[in-house]
């Protein structure tokens, strides 16, 4: 999907005006309406205060610290079931929370959205970061389709990889636009440790502020007469050096994801955690380059600045006004995977002109290799995506269909659940079913692994086709995995299925379904909706058959089991689990016997056996 530049350019000027107004007014934010759009501009910051409160190396903190605006922006790992918080810049987060608590921002946004208006947050410098956070909070509250957008100027990074991936997973990435000029050092500042740059900011920020004040309302500001402070040189060097480390680290991983050296050093080296998401508009004297490939953003941030020799341009943090007065050509960055590397292969396209203007022309082989690697990364994701979907479709028609037939055959014969037949494993059909099970397991294991290692698009786990097929797979096939586990007596070596052996593919599929909150259409389940049901049955049967267990322990466990089954009784496919040759039927009889005439929570189920 390309970026539609025509809808963006005319508004550009207005947006900057609003954010400039905000930074001058001293208010939390300024607002203005244009047609059916509410524009809210946040104030930038002229002092290093916004940064000073940090205690971490890069000024990052957990996004959900002291607030509940961003609860979905986390990462869940199927490997250990742990939740990892996204990190954001603390200075920006604190300011945002301050504004939320002390202004009517939320009310205004609510009113606008309820009135079917589009809300556009914008801001320059730290104001841009606040605009991003406001947009994230609004999308979290109002959902993916809410018309809320962020346009930032000179503050392109705000959160870490977890945040960037979560935003893409939710499908929000297209709501963010970040405008960066080629020479704006401040825009790259989060790539360096806070400590290494803070002393310069005390001098540089007031200078930039002064030059911002000279920016008139039309944005046709003159370049500052005053020479930039001497600290600028040193500042630039430090920022570039840290940016260089981050960019090359990322590029190595794009080029060779299995590289051992970076893997070995990773725990010992603390690089800037900030990673891009959304669209990026890189502005130079010759126009604008629009970048959607997020892996390409960091290399361009670095190489465009490192090749920028003109001192005047390096202080470009406040030069956003003049950008749209110059050349308004805009080109999308595309086809990176085949980006020309030699003069003979290069054509003078609109994209090449923009790349050249950013210092990433054909001579800058190293930068272009980094972009190719970014393209390769994107291509690999796309390729994996189509391969996996194709494989899913293929297996759906063959292995999955056969397994359904296998199960339904037993269902219609009404004497033995497929679970028991598979566990007995007497017939050739059971063996064939096992082969089908193995093939499906291999595919879903691969999917789970690809998602876990980020080798599929971040929103893949929300893909409806995957969730639908995966859920069906889980409901039909997980009982076979359980049967196989207990058939081979693996529980004696490795403990019970639920605690120690449930494959990650099932945990992941279950979690993805829960995250998606898909509507369940069928009221009367034709299949048991808790795919682990048989594992509960096996576990309690083992316990009851083990003479070594203490009686009271068994009793408690039996009660727990009964309550659990009672809780999911409406999800059971009773015509299956209560068949004559079902181990659950036997278990029920046993439990009934045990209860004597006393309380028997499962009596409704028990009574159904008779029927």
């Amino acid at each position: 999907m390309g970026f539609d530049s025509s809808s963006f350019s005319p508004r550009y000027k207005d947006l900057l005006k609003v954010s400039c107004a905000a930074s001058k007014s001293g208010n939390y934010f300024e607002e203005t309406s244009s047609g059916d759009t509410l524009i809210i501009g946040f104030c930038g910051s002229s002092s290093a205060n916004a940064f000073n409160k940090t205690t971490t190396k890069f000024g990052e903190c957990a996004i959900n610290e002291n607030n509940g605006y961003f609860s979905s922006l986390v990462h869940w790992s199927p490997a250990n079931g742990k939740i990892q918080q996204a990190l954001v810049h603390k200075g920006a987060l604190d300011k945002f929370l301050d504004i939320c608590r002390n202004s009517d921002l939320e009310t205004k946004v609510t009113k606008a959205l309820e009135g079917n208006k589009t809300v556009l947050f914008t801001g320059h410098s730290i104001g841009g970061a606040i605009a991003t956070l406001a947009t994230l909070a609004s999308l979290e509250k109002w959902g993916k389709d809410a018309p809320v957008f962020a346009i930032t100027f000179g503050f392109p990074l705000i959160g870490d990889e977890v945040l960037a991936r979560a935003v893409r997973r939710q499908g929000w990435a297209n709501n963010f636009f970040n405008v960066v000029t080629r020479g704006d050092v401040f825009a790259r500042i989060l790539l360096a440790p806070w400590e290494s740059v803070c002393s310069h900011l005390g001098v540089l920020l007031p200078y930039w502020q002064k030059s911002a004040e000279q920016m008139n309302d039309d944005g046709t500001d003159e370049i500052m007469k005053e020479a930039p402070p001497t600290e600028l040189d040193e500042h630039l060097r430090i920022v570039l050096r840290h940016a260089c480390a981050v960019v090359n680290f990322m590029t190595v991983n794009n080029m060779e994801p299995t590289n051992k050296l970076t893997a070995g050093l990773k725990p010992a080296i603390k690089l800037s955690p900030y990673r891009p998401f959304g669209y990026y508009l890189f502005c130079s004297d010759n126009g604008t380059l629009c970048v959607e490939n997020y892996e390409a953003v960091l290399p361009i941030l670095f190489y465009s600045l490192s090749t920028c020799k003109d001192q005047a341009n390096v202080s470009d943090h406040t030069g956003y006004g003049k950008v749209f007065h110059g050349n308004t050509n805009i080109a999308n960055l595309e086809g990176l995977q085949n980006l020309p590397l030699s003069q003979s292969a290069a054509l003078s396209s609109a994209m090449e002109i923009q790349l050249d203007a950013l210092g990433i022309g054909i001579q800058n082989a190293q930068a272009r290799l980094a972009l190719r690697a970014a393209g390769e990364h994107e291509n690999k994701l796309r390729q994996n995506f189509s391969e996996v979907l194709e494989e899913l479709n293929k297996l759906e028609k063959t292995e999955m269909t056969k397994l359904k037939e296998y199960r339904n055959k037993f269902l219609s014969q009404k004497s033995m659940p497929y679970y028991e037949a598979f566990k007995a494993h007497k017939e050739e059909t059971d063996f064939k079913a096992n082969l089908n099970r193995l093939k499906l397991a291999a595919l879903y294991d691969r999917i789970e692994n690809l998602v876990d290692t980020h080798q599929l698009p971040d929103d893949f786990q929300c893909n409806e086709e995957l969730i639908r097929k995966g859920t069906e797979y889980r409901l039909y096939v997980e009982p076979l995995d359980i049967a196989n586990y207990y058939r081979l007596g693996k529980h004696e070596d490795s403990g019970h299925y639920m605690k120690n052996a449930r494959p990650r593919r099932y945990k992941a599929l279950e979690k993805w379904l829960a995250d998606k909150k898909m509507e369940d259409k069928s009221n009367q389940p034709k299949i048991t909706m808790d795919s682990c049901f048989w594992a509960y049955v096996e576990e309690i049967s083992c316990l009851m058959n083990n003479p070594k267990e203490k009686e009271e322990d068994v009793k408690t466990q039996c009660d727990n089991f009964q309550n659990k089954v009672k809780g999911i009784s409406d999800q059971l496919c009773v015509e299956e689990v209560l068949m004559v040759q079902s181990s659950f039927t036997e278990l029920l009889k046993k439990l009934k016997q045990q209860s004597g005439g006393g309380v028997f929570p499962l009596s409704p189920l028990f009574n159904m056996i008779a029927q």
Partner: protein
Amino acid sequence: MDVDLLNPPKFSVGQELANFLATCEILLKAWKAICSISKNREDSFLLIKDEDVVYVIFPSFHNEDFIASDSKYGECNIKNQKIFSAGLKGNDDKPALVHKGALNRFLHILENSDFKAKMQDLKEQNIIFVGHSIGGAVAALATIWFLEKRLRNSNSFCITFGAPLFGNATIQEAIGREDWLGRFCHVVCKYDIVPRMYLAPYESIAKPLDAIVPHWRSKMGIDCVDVSHLSMSEACMTILNNVLKCTSTVANNYPGVRSPYVPIGTYMFCSTRGAACFEDSEAVLKLLHFSMQCQEGIPFDQIAGTCISEHTDYGCMLEGIDEALLNARQFANFVSNSSFEIGIALELEAIGVGAQDNHAFFALKKAGEAKNEQEMNTEKLNVKLSKNQSHMAELEWYKTRCKDSNTGYYDAFKQHDQKKDFHVNLARTNLGDFWDEIVEMEEKHVLPSDFRTRNKWINAGTTYRRLGEPLDIAYHCRTDKGNKSFLSDGVRPHRHIVLEKWMIEKEQTRTGRGKRGRTNFASLSEDSVFWARLEEACKASVRPQQEEFEAYVWTMITNKSISVEVFLEQSSFMKWWQQYSQIQLQSPQWRSSSPLFNFMANQSWN
């Protein structure tokens, strides 16, 4: 073999890796730490904590460390010391050789300082072992020593500056097998003599070093001695001459005696134009020569001087690279549009060898292609392994059915009189072909060096061997007319021997949790040649051999590593037992003393 070498690698990461290392501060910090080591700490080591990292610094520049004269190149067997594990050997069990001077220094520190105790305290941290010059070789040995402890929560890494080569191809193989090669990073200046000097025999470098080492010591601020300019410059020329002769032999593959040392780990070459990293040992060996060899326009004595001065100049060099990286560089255009080839060209430019050097270019190209082939082969095998799951399932199902008919799959397959026996034979041969191929590829080095220690393959191989080998034994017994034992030379398939070796070696490295005792009998006998041993026992005419087998079975029963299927009514084992116990029962004390007799009489397997 498949013909798809037409799939060249897409990238070469050498320059990006070096740029990352040069700017991530870790090298500069490590160098500064080295410079802070003062003379009175010279006998020991130094710990410096910085953020979450502990730097362990080793001293350099003991004259006596440089030259070890009991062997031609100063090498010695690492196994003589009890410090390193027995696993530190080649794939073919050949011994690992290291430089004796470095080894002695490391042992000295280990024994005469609180090094061990200090390392105990550091268990859960990021540790970077650092050394300059011969101290770099000591740091590398310390890293190996530490890695062999296999502590789960610590992460260790080794950085050296201007270190000489320290180990031979065997120790490199051992490190590669453990997948530790990525933990060594050696920084080498374009002309620094030390990294290549052990390619020459010690006697050709010993004398000049006598003059040069004091000079280095004073440069690093350890000693303050005056070295006469004249003797220095003569020493420089001599050593460069002698070393160049040997490096050129190595780089050009001329016949002759070669130094045993090879580069181990990633080498970062630095020049005034930039830096690049290389991991392929052969390629690095060549670059050690190409980057130092004389270039037109530069007088020999000047190069000789640089060879010595660069050895102590890493600080300046690192800062220079930093500068070179941040200044926008515009490169000459290469004709190629391949990102892989351009990557290599940029690397050669950066290390000052120049992209037009064809020897170097093709060495790197070949190395990249070989590595890529290894990766692709692994991917292919992954796919094949999951396809072969169906054959394994077939074997397993066959086993289940045989068990139900009270025979056991070994005996059923040996009789081979049913359709299912014929069917399963197909799965058996397919699996055999698959594992033959893997073993062959591994031996031809077209798989990654750590392939044979990867859990996935160890586990798959062991399961296959335990399930599949009994069928191979049965097949052999049924078809072999010569009555040759399965265990005699050349009969047991090579794949099983190799897979068992891989497993045993892996087990030896699995420390910590130790082996959990079994509570139930195994579903597959752990010793995959159990049936072959049984067949031998059946044929054996002498009693001691039979009694030996009895003892063997009893051990398996006590540690529950035998499968219960062995005790099925129709099994060959039961037949053997009937005959054997009949004979043994003639001696009355056997009945009371044999635990196996009791076990069998009570049918205790149930």
